[in-house]
């Protein structure tokens, strides 16, 4: 029983990060009508950003985090104006290829600057486990879960309650009608893009102490996030969080009860199974409303 709970907690904490990445896919898909295959690379950018700010510049985490987030926002914005905005009216294949291309570019740019070797990153939240009954929970697990859920809740409040958030949803639902309301559609689409990039980057920062920081980190994490988003239905924000968490739990059980090689294949298995048997995901729309 304890082992079960232990794995569950581990799974949820990892899944919360997958959820953050997944929600980035969903936000961009809804607003831009395209899957952003560079989303994973924003995770990698986040990891390198915190590496630079904390390890290289020696800034304390409380300052390093905001700086790293700002770096992610800036790079996200640059990606948007270079690879997304110019192609906004192009056909889907071209847009998709552009997102793949910009991902490859980011990965290799970072490799040129930092090399292909992995960088270790110190623990962020300390290593002293908290004992709850017989359960040992490491702080990283607690904080990942709290921050992951916290950010998603904040995002949902922002989108549901604020004037700008509502106008961002309107923009994603009908761009032309939004313009007729006087909504600055370009600005809203940029904000959506920047938020997605920052959420992906945030996941990358939280994941640093667990994985090494390497240029290919994004490929790995991007696939997990994508599987989570697809499982959640690709158009639903809560769905992507649920998808991410489910994937995290499945992986954790796979590793715990079988082997870590099983764990590595789960995201792909989920991708295939969802595409074949559950194309609308858990909370997605049955029909696609994108034209």
């Amino acid at each position: 029983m304890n082992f079960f709970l232990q794995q569950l907690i581990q799974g949820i904490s990892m899944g919360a990060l997958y959820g953050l990445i997944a929600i980035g896919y969903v936000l961009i898909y809804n607003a831009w009508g395209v899957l952003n295959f560079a989303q994973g690379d924003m995770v990698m950018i986040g990891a390198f950003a915190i590496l630079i700010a904390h390890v290289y510049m020696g800034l304390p985490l409380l300052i390093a985090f905001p700086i790293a987030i700002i770096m992610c926002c800036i790079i996200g914005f640059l990606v948007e104006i270079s690879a997304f905005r110019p192609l906004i009216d192009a056909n889907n294949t071209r847009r998709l290829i552009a997102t793949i291309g910009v991902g490859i570019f980011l990965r290799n740019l970072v490799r040129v600057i930092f090399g292909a070797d992995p960088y270790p990153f110190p623990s962020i939240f300390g290593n002293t486990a908290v004992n709850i009954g017989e359960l040992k929970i490491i702080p990283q697990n607690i904080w990942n879960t709290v921050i992951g859920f916290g950010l998603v809740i904040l995002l949902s409040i922002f989108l549901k309650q604020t004037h700008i958030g509502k106008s961002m949803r309107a923009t994603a639902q009908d761009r032309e009608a939004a313009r007729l309301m006087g909504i600055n559609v370009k600005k809203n689409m940029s904000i959506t893009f920047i938020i997605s990039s920052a959420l992906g980057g945030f996941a990358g920062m939280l994941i640093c102490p667990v994985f090494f920081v390497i240029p290919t980190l994004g490929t790995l994490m991007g696939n997990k996030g994508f599987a989570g988003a697809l499982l959640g239905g690709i158009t639903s924000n809560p769905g992507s969080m649920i998808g991410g968490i489910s994937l995290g739990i499945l992986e954790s059980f796979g590793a715990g009860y079988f082997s870590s090689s099983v764990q590595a294949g789960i995201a792909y298995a989920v991708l295939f199974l969802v595409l074949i048997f559950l194309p609308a995901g858990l909370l997605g729309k049955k029909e696609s409303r994108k034209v």
Partner: protein
Amino acid sequence: MPILERMSNNMLKLENVFVNYANIQVLHGINIEVKAGEIVTIIGANGAGKSTTLKAISGLIPKTLNSSIKFLDEDITSLQAEKVVERGISLSPEGRRIFPDLTVTENLEMGAYLRAKDKEGVKNDMKEVFTMFPRLEERKKQSGKTLSGGEQQMLAIARALMAKPKLLMLDEPSTGLAPLIVKDIFEIIKQVNKKGTTVLLVEQNAKIALSVADRGYVLKNGNIVMEDTGKNLLKNELIRAAYLGESTYKEKKA
């Protein structure tokens, strides 16, 4: 109507407006005028260019050559859509185009997007809109996509009104509605107009459109082919035969 008198008599003036889609020209230099306080309608067959005209005015599509669109004596020919609303022109577009996953209230708030600072005013106008369309108030927490076609049409009109436009443009507000509801909607259009909003109306239902309109234009294959008062157009034999679906035989019998 003292406010109206102070305004330029010519509210909207289209001169020589050309529109191309890719290589096909669909508007061939049309001229339309709307005076402050009027209800003006554009009628025409499917594909005549009615929606294109409204989209061209609202800034959604670019105009070519020497097209000129003036609103309150200011040139708005090359303004983008989001700037045109700011000047006081709102469009309730063809096909409703409400936001499907926003609630009725949120849809209305988006209509008043540019008036966010005027919280009091928006609140009052929302109340007023709800008295015009009580069905919308009953459904204010429902998402747009769960409304019936007629309710969605009401929402589209209400949303356009929430911008407090000087000129309200409606693209086929009667589409898909039961006759009784069409009557209600045109009553509301008249009411809105009486309160000082100028209306430019595009309709398939030429009969009802001409009966509420002060003046009407007939658009055919991208050209204005006739222009007169609503009353005269309604009496015109050619119009009756072509757009009111009445044969001369029926005419004589009546």
